[in-house]
């Protein structure tokens, strides 16, 4: 059952203009009625007459030369409109870079050309009257590949002379060099203890329940490209495809309907979508649809994680952290998206996390991203999170080595609000975080001390109980392309409020939360508000929904735009009510004069009618109409934080791990809708429970993926996920409304919390745990190795 506890720390509360009526409420979502009745509209639900359907022919070999590729039989098959290969589709002039990364020189191509570099690489595509006929014809494409030795393991990739990309000098996609920080060696030399461990994280997949998909139509008469996407925003694809086709970006109209999840996978359009756009251009005048099937999604839809972090820490005799060196290796596959796929550069900055360390120069971080003949890396919820996975496990390893309790060692190092503003060793400045407060709240909610007593009693009976903690500080990036979102709010002549936003909701409840903000800041009835997003011709430019930025940045601009339009509304209302605009109060779309709630009133519909239809009554100093556009520039970095605490029991006989309780104490500033906050956290934890215990994308030594269906790649079900409990610490941010992002954190802190709990449970057996995934057989192997060593 859910227990809740809320601690508010000093700071301003939400709601500038009016009383907070909607912000902070557990309001049911405005998206739900259409979605629970089957009336949502996802990309595959767009069924324009005349739509053609595409399917891909893919490589079954991890690395090799294409020795034969004959499409003539496929082209002659019933219902086939086109069969396209690199010869028809690829061009040396193609620009395959994203607004996010800028022009780059990383390897990229639309279809495999001359050789193949991973299993699942698209080699040809068939366009036909329906999907069944397209798949029939795809089987008639004759493809022969002469295999070459593949590079699969990233450690081996660094040593071998084989190249994933023969045009490159090495298999290293990107490197963060080891830097000699002055004095760091001395810090280690002088420390009471130095502890080193390497933590491995396997290959995780995003697995949105809706696979990728696109409908593309080229209109040769207007020379316009019309796209319906399953994505996280419309503007990045609009720019990408304008560059790909060499047309102005306003000749691309990109739209999104409902989107069935993404978790990072759909943030950037990938090569299959590129191929469909080029096919649509080649076919001309008919929509071309591609809906990825689940096997394609698992094998070639973009993979994540698969990395190691070697952490070396220096501590004093009391367990106080003095210095760290960390080295991060990432397997980014053959064609990561975007850019070189490296997350280590972000991890490096975030690594110090919730702890004080010992000032500038006390933390060094290096790493390499490595190409292999496997499916390329894509973003996945908290892409940089290996820093937390490594750091939080290291805290427990150090604690055990020094004989200090994991809660106590965190207390000795954690940043509390008394330390703010705090500058980390990597020069991040925390102003509104509360790691110590969430640590204490989580420890209290889970009953830490009582659990330790229960654990002791259980151990005496031979049972293996464990508790795991994990603390993190979650960044929201507000620099570069990620630094701005925009909103246009228009009060229509009817008095209805349309807000055009740059977001790209794919499950984040944006239509609900943004309406809550606008309702409060404008003083209008929430039922009068409609949030419009996902149409590049209607909505302002923005990076879309991702990176936990919607709360602070989209929320920030919703807040500012609502306040600006409110000023316009109260100016007209003041004219109509013969009062000063400053004395106008707006509540539920009705304007009254302050101090006279039962006096004269005018509705928003009447105000709007005057603004649009009776413009002479406005006088010379009021602009007709009611519309404002605002663009908000966020601070370069914003932070939320949380502590996860979990208790488990490991079954010695079956190797099964049972989660007893899972508690999260988090601080995302002012909560727009606590129900949605908790939903975001829960989704992330469930993905981690899946990742740590069930999900594991496996390749064999030849680069064949072995987990190609849901029978092999195991997602957790309702039977595996326990009820979660939440505590909320509220430290408002300094951004408009005081909101912080929290969309990724649930998936960041949870793997190390779970791993620490298992580590703690197995502690009596003196087991070294450094790897995931912890399937029951893996746990049994660990237990048996401990038995064997005695």
């Amino acid at each position, binding site marked *: 059952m859910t227990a809740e506890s809320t601690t508010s720390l000093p700071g301003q509360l939400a709601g500038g203009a009016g009383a907070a009526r909607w912000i902070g409420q557990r309001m*049911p*979502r405005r998206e739900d009625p259409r979605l629970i009745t089957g009336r949502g509209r996802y990309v595959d639900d767009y069924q324009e007459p005349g739509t053609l359907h595409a399917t891909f022919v893919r490589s079954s070999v991890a690395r090799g030369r294409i020795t034969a590729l004959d499409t003539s039989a496929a082209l002659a098959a019933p219902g086939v409109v086109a069969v396209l290969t690199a010869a028809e589709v690829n061009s040396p002039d193609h620009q395959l870079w994203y607004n996010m990364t800028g022009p780059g020189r990383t390897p990229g191509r639309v279809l495999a050309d001359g050789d193949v570099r991973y299993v699942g690489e698209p080699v040809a595509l068939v366009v036909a009257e329906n999907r*069944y006929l397209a798949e029939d014809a795809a089987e008639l494409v004759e493809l022969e590949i002469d295999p070459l030795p593949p590079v699969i393991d990233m450690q081996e990739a660094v040593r071998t002379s084989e190249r994933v990309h023969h045009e490159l000098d090495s298999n290293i996609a990107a490197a963060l060099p080891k830097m000699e920080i002055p004095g760091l060696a001395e810090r280690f030399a002088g420390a009471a203890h130095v502890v080193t461990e390497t933590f491995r994280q396997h290959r995780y997949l995003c697995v949105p329940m809706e696979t990728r998909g696109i409908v593309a139509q080229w209109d040769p008469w207007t020379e316009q490209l019309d796209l319906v996407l399953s994505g996280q925003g419309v503007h990045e694809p609009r720019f990408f495809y304008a560059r790909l086709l060499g047309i102005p970006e306003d000749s691309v109209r990109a739209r999104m309907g409902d989107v069935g999840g993404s978790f990072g996978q759909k943030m950037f359009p990938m090569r299959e979508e590129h191929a469909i756009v080029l096919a649509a251009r080649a076919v001309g005048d008919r929509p071309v649809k591609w809906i990825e*099937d689940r096997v394609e999604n698992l094998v070639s839809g973009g993979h994540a994680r698969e990395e190691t972090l070697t952490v070396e820490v220096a501590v004093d005799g009391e367990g106080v952290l003095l210095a760290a060196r960390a080295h991060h290796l990432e397997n980014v596959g053959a064609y990561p998206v975007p850019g070189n796929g490296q997350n280590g550069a972000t991890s490096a900055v975030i690594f110090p996390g919730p702890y004080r360390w010992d000032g500038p120069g006390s933390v060094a971080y290096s790493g390499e991203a490595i190409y292999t003949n496997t499916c390329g890396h894509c973003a996945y919820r908290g892409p940089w999170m290996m820093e937390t996975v490594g750091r939080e496990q290291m805290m427990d390893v150090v604690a055990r080595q020094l004989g200090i309790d994991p809660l106590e060692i965190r207390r000795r190092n954690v940043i509390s609000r008394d330390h703010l503003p705090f500058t980390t060793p990597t020069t991040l400045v925390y102003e509104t975080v509360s790691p110590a407060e969430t640590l204490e709240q989580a420890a209290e909610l889970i009953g830490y001390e009582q659990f330790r007593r229960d654990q002791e009693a259980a151990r005496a009976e031979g049972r293996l109980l464990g508790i795991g903690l994990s603390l993190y500080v979650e960044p929201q990036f507000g620099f570069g392309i990620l630094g701005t979102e925009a909103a246009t709010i228009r009060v229509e002549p009817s008095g209805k409020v349309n807000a055009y936003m740059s977001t790209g909701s*794919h499950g984040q409840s944006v239509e609900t939360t943004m309406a809550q903000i606008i309702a409060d800041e404008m003083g209008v009835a929430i039922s009068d508000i409609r949030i419009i997003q996902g149409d590049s011709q209607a909505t302002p430019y923005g990076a879309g929904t991702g990176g936990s930025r919607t709360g602070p940045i989209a929320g920030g601009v919703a807040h500012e735009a609502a306040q600006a339009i409110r000023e316009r509304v109260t100016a007209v209302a003041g004219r109509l009510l013969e009062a000063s605009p400053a004395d106008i109060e707006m509540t539920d779309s009705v304007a009254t004069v302050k101090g006279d709630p039962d006096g004269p009133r005018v509705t928003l519909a009447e105000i709007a009618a005057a603004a649009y239809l009776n413009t002479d009554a406005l006088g010379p100093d009021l602009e007709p109409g009611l519309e404002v556009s605002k663009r908000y520039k966020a601070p370069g970095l914003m932070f939320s934080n949380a502590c996860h605490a979990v208790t488990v029991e490991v079954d010695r006989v079956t190797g099964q791990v049972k989660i007893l309780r899972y508690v999260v104490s988090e601080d995302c500033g002012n909560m727009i809708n606590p129900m949605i906050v908790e939903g975001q956290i829960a*989704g992330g934890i469930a993905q981690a429970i899946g990742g740590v215990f069930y999900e594991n994308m496996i390749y064999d030594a030849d680069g064949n993926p072995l987990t190609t*269906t849901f029978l092999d790649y195991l997602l957790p*079900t309702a039977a595996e996920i326990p009820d979660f409990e939440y505590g909320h610490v509220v430290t408002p941010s300094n951004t408009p409304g005081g909101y912080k992002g929290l969309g990724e954190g649930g998936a960041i802190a949870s793997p190390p919390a779970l791993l620490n709990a298992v580590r703690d449970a197995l502690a009596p057996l003196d087991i070294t745990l450094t790897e995931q995934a912890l399937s029951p057989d893996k746990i049994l192997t660990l237990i048996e190795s401990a038995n064997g060593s005695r």
Partner: protein
Amino acid sequence: MPELPVQELSGRPSGGLKAGAEVEVELTVNGRSRRARVEARKTLADTLREDLHLTGTHIGCEHGVCGACTVLVDGAAVRSCLMFAVQAAGTEVTTVEGLAPDAASLSPVQRAFREHHGLQCGFCTPGFVVSATAFLAENPRPTEEEIRAGLSGNLCRCTGYQGIVRAVRAAAGELAAASPDSNSHHGGGHDSNGKESA
């Protein structure tokens, strides 16, 4: 190309029928008699979506694991991606669209999903709503364990199942309260709702 068991399971012509050979299928969907001319190999899911324009039934895996395509066939929950439309000839099919004619007349399960935040992206939701409806029709007073087992044939990637389990608990309570001896209650809310909507 890689082995694609999805197509093996769902897209092959069966027996001696030639690809492209079409058959006339007549079935009752959400209380209305419907007719479609489809290839014999066409799945019920594709037929509902493409020929009958009922796009609420979603396709998430095409190999019978995720449950997004769950519909009721003669009252029983069925994966419509694993069934050919021709196999559904003569049956009564209820899709998610048949559970509520409009947003103001949600079924108890649908209402509970909204009240308890049982969905985020909403893609898996029609399958969960239909599965839960069938499950509660069969077992109106489920234990916690039974709820979790009953939902374990459907996958959700957004919610961590928190709101879904809460919603089904709540709907079970409501349905049990509404019909005190609901053990004999056959067909569940879906049928009666579907018929009301027709």
